[in-house]
């Protein structure tokens, strides 16, 4: 019987080792590097305590990026949620061309963020971009707009694109939630005389609560860490005006070779990320508490 019990462990150990190696090692290395003095050529020069963290916390660019990260995350996640729930409710209803509508709404998910950003960068080109072509063709504007030349406009545009690419995933979560809602409760509420709005307010919204929570947490994690859109479209520019933490971190690490400082920021971000991951794990575990043991039995 002893050998029997070892089987499942043998089956999970390879995956455990790989994950620890690829995900665990870098974290330790980051912690180590963050407390090292680093030369201009990226050589580690020995322990320097919290100096790197002190430097980060006295860096105005860090604070600017931090605030922008907050705006970026809240705006993208908020915008995505507000749009996705009605979209999911429409897609969950019967109508002509629903299959087609589903495929179209999900399309942005199928493209890599990099490619999407490259295409938008061209579409938003201040001189010949086809967005300007469309706006001018429809008479909405009379001369080309430089979408990416000034930070506020560029950042707003990037947020909108961030929302666009987050909608499919979020809508998918909501569709899964909506299809699990009990149909008979809706029929009962109709018999009880509920209006559509009241159904939404007192049935759909509370029943969708767990799905909305999950969507918030997952989107925060994804958006907070999302590099490609901003990196490809403006590389954090102009003049660091669209930098969020990840782009700032990437520049520090791979443009300016400030490994110590970059490690410190990585660790700070890891801390924030970890908090959200824990929230996510707790939420999933709570959802699973009842059904989790089904389909399992002893060896």
């Amino acid at each position, binding site marked *: 019987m002893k050998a029997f019990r070892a089987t499942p462990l043998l089956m999970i150990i390879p995956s455990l080792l790989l994950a620890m190696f690829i995900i665990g090692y870098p974290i330790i290395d980051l912690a180590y590097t963050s407390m090292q003095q680093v030369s201009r050529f990226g050589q580690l020069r020995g322990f320097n305590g919290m100096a790197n963290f002190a430097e980060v916390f006295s860096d105005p660019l860090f604070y600017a990026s931090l605030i922008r990260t907050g705006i970026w995350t809240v705006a993208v996640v908020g915008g995505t949620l507000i749009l996705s729930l009605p979209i999911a409710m429409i897609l969950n209803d019967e109508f002509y061309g629903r299959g087609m509508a589903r495929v*179209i709404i999900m399309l942005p998910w199928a493209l890599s963020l990099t490619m999407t950003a490259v295409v938008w960068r061209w579409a938003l080109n201040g001189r010949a971009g086809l967005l300007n072509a469309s706006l001018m063709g429809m008479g909405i504007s009379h001369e080309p707009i430089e979408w990416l030349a000034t930070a506020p406009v560029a950042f707003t545009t990037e947020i909108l694109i961030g929302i666009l690419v987050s909608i499919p995933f979020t809508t998918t979560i909501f569709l899964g939630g909506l299809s699990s809602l009990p149909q008979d409760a809706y029929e009962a509420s109709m018999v009880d005389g509920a209006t559509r709005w009241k159904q939404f307010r007192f049935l759909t919204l509370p029943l969708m609560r767990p799905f909305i929570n999950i969507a918030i947490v997952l989107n925060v994690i994804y958006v907070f860490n999302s590099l490609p859109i901003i990196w490809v479209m403006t590389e954090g520019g102009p003049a660091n005006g669209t930098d969020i933490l990840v782009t700032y971190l990437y520049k520090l690490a791979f443009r300016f070779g400030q490994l110590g400082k970059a490690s410190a920021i990585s660790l700070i971000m890891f801390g924030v990320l970890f908090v959200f991951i824990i929230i996510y794990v707790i939420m999933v575990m709570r959802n699973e508490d009842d059904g989790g043991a089904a389909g399992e039995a002893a060896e």
Partner: protein
Amino acid sequence: MSNKLVRSIVYWLLLSPLVIVILFPFAVMFVTAVRPRDELFTFPPSWFFSEFRWDNFVDMWTKVNFGGALLNSLYVSVAATVLALVFSIPAAYALSRYRFRGKGLYRNFLLMTQMMSPIVLVLGLFRLMVAFGLVNNLNSLVITYAAFNMAFTIWMLQSYFNTIPRELEEAAWMDGATHLRSLIRIFLPLAVPAIAVTAIFIFINSWNEFVLALTMLRNNNDFTLPVQIFSQVAGRYQIEWHHVMAATVLATVPVAIVFSWLQRYLIRGMALGAVK
């Protein structure tokens, strides 16, 4: 007019702004990809152009070294998929079929690694690959992609495996099969569709990955498609947008079609697994 017809019209009207914004970049991609080079920067900017220049694709192939990047992307994505499956299938089977000490802990660990983002670790990963001499080596991506996709893969496979009744394997044992035999003759044939779907998702994830590829690969000949295309627009004076768009079309459209087709399985996997 019937109720459904009215509803359909209202819904489509509500969705239309989003539909236009979603389809817009696709239109931009196609229109630019087949446009003659000297009509890229006309003023005022316009959607219209004089002729379809299909040769753009041919020129692009050599100018952008599309073929090389394509092979790199294929190698990395296929190898990462195989590696992730090799690690994930046994783990998913164990999760689905056995009770064991530390199972809950292991599942939490998986959930955590699933959410772990490469960008936060990118510097540490880079230093890891430097230490192992794997920078500028496609295998650095193979290993990291496999590791970062593993949690999702195990999670997804496990939820599919749970739908294959364990009674079938038990019946095979009663019929006289060994564990290995029942795995090969009964379990695997039934699990093939699930494994295939999961494999395609790993493949697409790897195919689309950008940050790690950008970091680990420093040599033009090693670039995967996203990095290769990015390198055509990043820090250049003269961007050959018609080539860039032609490359984007070729790199994304096949994957997008497969993804759209398989997307409902992803929903199902998520519904069964993490997001329940």
